[in-house]
């Protein structure tokens, strides 16, 4: 902390070039224009800059918790943030840039109504899109929205020009509208109570600007442009704004009915994805198990390889590969990709469960059935599988409950299911407790009846 001779600042390396990122040539070394600004700022304050990695969506709660002293990571100046944080004078002016496919006629915000437009979570662009009733697709990283735009999964991408220039406009399939659809500024976020530090940060920034050091840094990163002329006027506006009564202490906002309705929609989507994914995983898993115990060596090897690869790699990675990696081959919608990704992954687990269950059956069952003249398929269908499914039932329920919770991973491919909805609402409502409890309650309400049903079925099979 400041008193210890350190300026603790928070940001997210996943924000990537040119903000704060790991140097490609020197792994472990962080670079970026904000790293340079933080260093200059610390020097001006007579302390050392210390970076804290933090998930971008949660920078503000972490600041409030006291994990670091300030946020310096593309934090946009918005009225909402102003009422929650003490914001510094701007250190960068950005333009909202709309990227579309070449040939698209979309140019202005008003034209975006009803179109599916990609952006990042908790950005000014997201607010703008929602105000203009666009169908917003939220991404975690900067590159993914432009990949989806190239593949036609979204009609446009609205993001800061810094991101658009680096990740979108250079792609041959895309066109960036030259006029900024809106302008805004990046500011440093501090706790409202740290007024002294905030004043010093403002003074230090002013000094850096006056001496041309900030311009030097931005020029070095090829970020200096005509937009930066607004740094002074925006700064004055910012100061005038602050003359008004200081923001009230951080207060929770009650959840609105609309937010709760969105929670239930998220839960519904979670159920839909889980049920469909398991509906795929179960028969495919049984098929894999049967193949592994009955088929010839080549097919058996392929099935074993499938099971080992899909069990041995993270489902998150598989979702990325399926949705982004294969998008030039198959263009799946987010929900289809979510169902397919989870289903194919869980099929590998189901295959093992059912292989074990089939192996647990007494050998005599198959012998007795085939000595009655049943074909191999008839033996499986009428004698082995009905019994192995009963053996597998507890493991099966277990896996479904696990799948229900793993389905939260599909938010990385823009699906807003229950957990993602919870994080969005929590940030809006400035409260993690109530949304968290509501989210947990909904998951529990979905999984508990299942485990009751399962133990009831087990008892029924045992008594019959």
């Amino acid at each position, binding site marked *: 902390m400041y008193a210890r001779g350190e300026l603790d600042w928070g940001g997210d390396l996943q924000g990537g070039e040119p903000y704060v990122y790991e140097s490609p040539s020197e792994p472990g070394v962080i670079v970026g224009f904000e790293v340079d600004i933080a260093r200059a700022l610390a020097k001006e304050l007579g302390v050392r800059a210390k970076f804290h990695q933090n998930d971008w969506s949660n920078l503000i709660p972490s600041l409030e918790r006291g994990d670091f002293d300030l946020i310096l990571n593309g934090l946009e100046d918005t009225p909402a943030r102003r009422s929650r944080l003490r914001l510094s004078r701007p250190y960068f002016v950005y333009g909202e840039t709309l990227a579309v496919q070449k040939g698209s006629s979309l140019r202005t915000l008003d034209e975006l109504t009803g179109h599916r437009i990609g952006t990042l979570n908790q950005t000014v662009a997201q607010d703008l899109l929602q105000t203009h009733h666009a169908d917003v697709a939220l991404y975690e990283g900067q590159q993914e929205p432009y990949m989806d735009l190239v593949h036609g999964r979204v009609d446009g991408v609205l993001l800061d020009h810094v991101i658009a220039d680096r990740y979108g406009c250079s792609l041959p399939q895309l066109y960036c509208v030259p006029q900024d659809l809106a302008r805004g500024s990046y500011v440093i976020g501090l706790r409202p109570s740290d007024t002294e530090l905030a004043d010093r940060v403002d003074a230090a920034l002013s000094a850096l600007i006056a001496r041309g050091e900030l311009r030097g840094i931005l020029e070095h990163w090829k970020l200096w442009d005509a937009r930066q002329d607004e740094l002074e006027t925006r700064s004055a506006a910012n100061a005038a704004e602050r003359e008004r009564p200081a923001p009230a202490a951080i207060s929770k906002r009650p959840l609105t009915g609309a937010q709760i309705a969105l929670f239930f929609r998220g839960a519904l989507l979670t159920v839909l994805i889980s049920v469909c994914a398991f509906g795929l995983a179960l028969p495919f898993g049984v098929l894999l198990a049967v193949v592994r115990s009955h088929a010839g060596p080549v097919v058996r090897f392929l099935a074993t390889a499938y099971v080992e690869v899909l069990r041995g790699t993270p489902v998150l990675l598989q979702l990325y590969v399926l949705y982004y990696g294969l998008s030039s081959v198959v263009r799946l919608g987010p929900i289809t990709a979510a169902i397919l990704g989870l289903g194919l992954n869980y099929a590998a687990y189901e295959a093992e469960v059912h292989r074990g269950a089939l192996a647990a059956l*007494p050998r005599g*069952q198959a*012998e007795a059935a*085939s*000595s*009655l*003249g049943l074909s191999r398929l008839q033996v499986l269908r009428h004698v082995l599988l009905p019994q192995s499914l009963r053996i597998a039932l507890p493991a099966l329920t277990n896996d479904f409950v696990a799948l229900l919770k793993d389905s939260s991973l599909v938010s990385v491919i823009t699906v807003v299911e229950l957990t993602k909805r919870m994080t969005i609402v929590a940030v809006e409502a400035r409260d993690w407790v109530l949304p968290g409890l509501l989210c947990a309650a909904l998951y529990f309400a979905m999984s508990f009846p299942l485990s009751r049903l399962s133990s009831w079925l087990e008892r029924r099979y045992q008594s*019959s």
Partner: protein
Amino acid sequence: MIRITGLQKTFGATRVLGGVDAEVAEGKIVALLGASGSGKSTLLRCLNGLETFDAGSLEIAGFSLGPGAHEQRTLQALRAKVGMVFQEFHLFSHLSVLDNVTLAPRVAQGVARAEAEAHARQLLAQVGLAERANARPRELSGGQKQRVAIARALAQGVRVLLLDEPTSALDPELREEVREVLRRVARGAHDAPGRAGVAPSPGLTILLVTHERALAHELADEIWTLSAGKIVSRATPNKTGNVPNAVPSGD
């Protein structure tokens, strides 16, 4: 009719069947005696294709089998004509008694459910289990289970019945009920239709692997003794009922 010619079978380095030659005429009952490990069960299992063999040939119920892997279609057709009863019953635990008996006729033969069930109820009545048709296997005693297994093996109107130590897994006090069913099956095989046997099975050929010498002498037309993979004696049974039941049971 069963004809076994030069049948040889090894498990790894162990020779289990060392050239078996034998014949059972249609409608005859043969009991197969021999110590544990003499190859009785293996011979029986070769007869319906549950085991393959290395050399020789088999003719059974109008089908021919050669050494090595058998064709699946041939096996299915053969097994529809050759019933098998196991020492450990192997009833299908997820099916009711009635469904155990009707499964093969319905699934493998395509017999309509009503018809299959009518026939199954008849068979269950003949093994004395008419009132247990809806029971689950776990609710039955060992003797009852084996009687169901016999009904199940006969349900497709088989021409040959292979019985692999049908009483060995049972407590002594439960064996008699199974013996009684076996007597009825044997009478059904020997006698003209309409008599007290398990009908309709005139002309049924039976091969009974057993440790019970008395039962063998009582039921069989011929008794073979197997030793070290070969038939060492073929005898007509002593029907006086004065046979010592001396061969130790167990496997």
